[in-house]
């Protein structure tokens, strides 16, 4: 196995945490694979109605 480092990263879990990590990795020059167990990303945050304290829509 070569010891050369690869410029790609795997992110497991497509909730708000995984998505933010994916965006930051992609925007700083790495190829990202985002793996999600369900049929779409979004996770628990997409189920929330509004978020405090601004009452912004969680979607």
């Amino acid at each position, binding site marked *: *196995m*070569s*010891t*050369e*480092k*690869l*410029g*790609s*990263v*795997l*992110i*497991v*879990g*497509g*909730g*708000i*945490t*995984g*998505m*933010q*990590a994916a965006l*930051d*990795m*992609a*925007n*700083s*020059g*790495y*190829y990202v*694979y*985002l*793996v*999600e*167990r*369900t*049929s*779409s*990303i*979004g*996770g*628990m*945050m*997409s*189920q*929330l*109605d*509004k*978020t*405090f*304290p*601004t*009452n*912004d829509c969680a*979607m």
Partner: protein
Amino acid sequence: MLTLSEVTALKGEAGNFVVSILQHPRYVDMDKCIACGACAEKCPKKVPNEYDANLVKRKAIYVQYAQAVPLKYAIDPEYCIKLTKGKCGKCEEVCPADAINYEDKERHIDLNVGAVIMSAGSETYNPLDHDTYGYGKNKNVVTSLEFERILSASGPYGGHMVRPSDKKEPEKIAWLQCVGSRDEHLEGRGYCSGVCCTYAVKEAMLAKEHAGGNLDAAIFYMDIRTNGKDFERYYNRAKDEAGVRFVKSRVTNIVPDKESGMSLIRYVDEQGLRVEEAFDIVVLSVGLGATAEGRALAEKLGLELNRYNFVSTGSFKPVETATPGIFACGACQAPKDIPSSVVDSSAAAGVAGSLLSEARWSLTRKAQIPEERNIRGDATRIGVFVCCCGTNIAGVVDVPAVVEFAKGLPGVVFSEQNMFSCSQDTQVKMGEVIQEQGLNRVVVAACTPKTHEPLFQDTLTSAGINKYLFEMVNIRNQCSWVHKDDAEAATVKAKDLVRMAVAKAGLLEPLPEPILNVNQNALVIGGGVAGMETAKNLSEQGYFTYLVERDGKLGGNARSLHETWRGEDIQGYLQELTREMETADKVEVCLGAEITDVDGFVGNFKTTIMQGQESRTLEHGVTIMATGASEHSPEDPALIESSRVMTGLQLQQGFNKGDSRLNGLSTAVFLQCYGSRIPERPFCSKVCCTQSIKSALELKKRNPDMHIYVVYRDMRPYGLREDLYREARTRGISFIRYNFEKELRIEPRDEKVEVEFTDTVFRKQVTIQADLLVLASAIVPEKENPLSQFYKVAQNEDGFFVEAHVKLRPVDFATDGVFVCGLAHSPKPIDESIAQAQAAAARAVTLLSAKSLPVSGTVAEVNPLNCSSCGVCVSICPYSAPRMDEKTGKAVIESTLCKGCGLCVASCRSGALHLKGFETSQIMGMIDCV
């Protein structure tokens, strides 16, 4: 993006892993599916809808929610009649896109990656596991996640808050806190979930809003733990302004009343009386826990788990697992709220980035952008795309009529309707239409430009026309949503809005986006732990960093700290970190330095510092504020002078130095919230509860016979720190809740210090003669910090810096190129400061690594002939974009600072300013046509 997928195996080492992925069949071809919904409409099989917390049903072919990404249907193989019994096949019959594939097979994919980030999240506690509250039997007992869906406009009741059993509007709702949290009797549920207090407050406030003020909302709690940034203010607002009732009581059971549908709760009130009260809805504030899938994944990755099955991490390396190259962030390592999860994500990106920095940009693909077509002099050719948004728009607005209407407008050569204008396939098609029809202006009538304009502009760019030749109309919010009861009027309004947009589009001109080179150096202000960790990560990622510290020494507050709550030695860590700073090639430490002047903007800052008599100017592309905060010192000089009184930090220092005052003590009192949660400082300092517990345990370790009392208002050892609180109680440390409304007296004497307060349980005055009083003193930032002016970043009322977005951009400032971390942002313990420091570095690197930035073309411009040099634009601009040119005396706009808000244009009395993309002729054109 790989959905319906899971990791099955991992080989290799940091920098070079091979990960095996199993992708389950979707049975729907993602390339063909247009998400029209015909399949789900005809599907005969109803199954519980997990997304809506099982309150309603969905079909066996489904999308999780209308805005799902990817917006492609999937068949649930567990329920689908065709897949389980070989019969049916309805969806295949009705699918207009021929996307259904019952033969779809699972796929095995091997990926080569340099690092793995685990963000498997958490799940809410299922109260069915222990039947205490009749959840599952009594329909009006719901979990907090179910209640979120009840409140949601996209939820099962369309945002109409009703009682599930009979859809009656509720008059009384109760929240029961700590369901599935802080409960050792439930297996593996001893910790505090950290998020439930605040979300219960939020749900109570929203419920009150829904009910229009006639709702009685009561929260039953053990301690209210609103210790995040600005959480305490929100709690106070709920209590004092919104009238949410907070009842300190642990409710043990609920008795349903069949006839009225009410649920009876028995509790003991503040006066010690037994009360029975009936509620329409009882919301169980369920805690967060590790998921079975997360645990299975951790096992496959070979990660260590703690006793609650969360991934283990340490305080000094908050997102690193014990395996190099594998990182964990968010709620899979402990219960966390959204901002902490987002901070963790960026921190993981930062640490993974430092591991792989030599391979940066080696595997990314560059988007192919065609050369921009010159449209000057060409006849206007406008294309209008009208979105149905499924039924979201087309359910009300007559979309075909709007399309027909648009065809007759001047300059329009093409008009069509789209099921979802924003979907990937429509973008491809839109690009083709632009090229085939030779369009030189595009109008999209759909939803809000706030979220979708950049997407359509990208399509224009990739189709070879300037992205500013685009106009968007919001016929969703402004027509189908607000006029949902009057389809005809909604359609007329949609036509008018399209007419106005077409009128403006005809007058649009291509705008250039200047490219700005980004200076590759970083400046970190503040040499505490947060500042040093930021500098460390930036330098490891390959960027030269100036670390500026006002003091003559690095280390900040951490120089006084003893151990973390997990028991890790802070001084050892600090020495190592300081040594790294002093020896790193890519870090220049500037001690004893004051910032005297700042010039420039994102990509090109010039900061002047003064070290002694010497002044120098540092050039840098990004700035990170890690300026910290300090411990509040008592106002009463008698307390400062007394050898029997110490602050929390002084006690920690005492442990480090072996202070002789800590020997031979027989009684100690810790007084919590000293200077916090009071009218002058209405915030929680977050760290003091855990620090006092930790220090109390340390004293107890040194002298097991010692009497220790912790006098508190709410104990807030959140998350896994709850374990430490439990340990302290089992070791005989007494925790006494005192009445904050009543007088508290502290009298230092020579031998003893006397503390007198009112106990809330016995409602009696208590006096303790102690050998030592420890004041758990507040964390206070520097109010009116001059840096706030220098870098145009805001401070809140308490003096902490204000981030760009509380949840989604917790380390960014609204000002581009400036980031924040550590205590300067809000009170927080060392592990969270480190995660935030790494996150700030990661966010800064997203700018630095791009090397150059495009600047928006929508900026103000001055016509110097009309400028009267009055300076109104200079004083009114919130971004300091206009200045008076020294030579001509006329205003000039620095386009890199201009945000295109138009304030200066509106306030210019000479008419010398105009905003590109919002010219007077364009606006008047819109007005004239209606």
